[in-house]
């Protein structure tokens, strides 16, 4: 029993000694070897979402934070996935005024032409990749502006927000979309465009062809017939380049009615999910 107690005592002394020696050593070392870390970068990293999606134009979140911190980049709005919270956070760290009003923007595919509705020109055989297909005369669709449907946007989407819907057409899930715009960059036909998250209607067509050509190419394309703009002048529809464009800041009466009146059905009411 005595030796046990004696050992406890030894242990007490030696570990205390070891601990203090190491603690002392570390403390000294910490002082001598101190390298200042950039606190701003760390603080910024706390606010950035850490997705490393690259939509800010940098390789990842950290390089963007470094650029902001060092002042080599003064644009604090470059992080799209972060949204308002991130912007506010960055603003706080860098002591800058930020404007966080305005809705979150999400991507959407402006085309509903698929098998049975859109005409094709030839049989495509090759890679399942939109950019690869567009090398061959801009894709197999007769319409040059539509969605090629080979899913390159799905592949690049970091949030898994894009998929084929029930009709087999490409559609963005606005709840999952983080607004990084990667799909827009990869899409060869430019059919994906940003719309506000709370968008009520969408003109699901991107064809700038003349009405006659559009009609020949696709049964659900916007033919620029002006019905929406003329019948509902306050609803915010405007025709440019044979294509109706919805103004989202200008939501007058009759927006949903216009969808019903659209002869080709290219105006779609988005249900409030």
């Amino acid at each position: 029993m005595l030796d046990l107690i004696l050992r406890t005592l030894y242990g007490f002394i030696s570990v205390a000694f070891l601990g203090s020696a190491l603690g002392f050593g570390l403390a000294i070392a910490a002082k001598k070897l101190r390298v200042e870390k950039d606190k701003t970068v760390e603080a910024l990293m706390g606010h950035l979402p850490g997705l490393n999606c690259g939509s800010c134009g940098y390789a990842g979140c950290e390089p963007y934070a470094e650029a902001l911190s060092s002042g080599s980049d003064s644009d604090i709005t470059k992080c799209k996935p972060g949204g308002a919270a991130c912007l506010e956070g960055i603003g706080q760290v860098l002591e800058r005024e930020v404007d966080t009003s305005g809705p979150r923007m999400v991507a959407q595919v402006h085309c509903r032409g698929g098998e049975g509705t859109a005409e094709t020109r030839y049989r495509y055989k090759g890679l399942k990749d939109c950019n690869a297909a567009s090398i061959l005369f801009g894709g197999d669709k007769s319409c040059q502006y539509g969605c090629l449907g080979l899913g390159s946007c799905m592949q690049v989407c970091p949030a898994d927000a894009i998929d084929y819907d029930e009709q087999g057409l490409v559609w963005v899930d606005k709840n999952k979309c983080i607004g990084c715009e990667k799909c827009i960059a990869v899409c060869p036909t430019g059919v994906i465009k940003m719309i506000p998250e709370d968008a009520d209607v969408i003109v699901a067509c991107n064809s700038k062809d003349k009405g006659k050509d559009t009609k020949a190419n696709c049964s659900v394309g916007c033919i620029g017939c002006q019905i929406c703009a003329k019948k509902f002048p306050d609803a915010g529809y405007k025709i440019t380049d044979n294509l109706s464009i919805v103004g989202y800041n200008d939501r007058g009466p009759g927006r949903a009615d216009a969808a019903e009146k659209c002869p080709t059905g290219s105006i779609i009411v988005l249900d409030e999910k």
Partner: protein
Amino acid sequence: MSYIGIIITYVFISNMILSQFLGLCPFIGVSKDSDSAVGMGFAVTFVMSMASLVTWIIYHGILVPLNLEFLQTIAFILVIASLVQLVEMAVQKFSPALYKALGIYLPLITTNCAVMGIALINVREEYNILESFTAGFAGGIGFLLAIFLMSAIRVKLDKENVPRFLKGTPIAFVSGGLMALAFMAFDRALLANLIG
């Protein structure tokens, strides 16, 4: 056991990762690309060799004479943690380039089971100081080998169409499992027959 035997044992037969499960976290975490895998491997090798040496001195120099074997865990981990931190700070101060290459992995090593594991194994196998150092070094090399091979496989898998739920960590485990299956080729009997 001869030194060559110790090296073969800890590189192939009792590979830290593939047969002892020590150091799995960094093995899975830092094997996504080969450069960081090799960096991690060398950092672990260095720390394991040093830790084997220092813990041997602590154990046989202090704990055994004072009959304090029960304080083994606390003493070892204290020494290893301090060692890692010291190494990290020193590297950061004196070689920023090396720190950039290794530094981010060094804090991870504190909680790398492989380092603590080899220290405990050294005690269990009753190695002398040189044998301990050899075992630590060989264990690190075994770790380096496994993580390097793994990273090459994962780089290849990055470009393959791995099913969605298996992507990332799960497929890394499955790959590790298949590696371990193959490494069953190396057993103690092989070593015994080779070097007697």
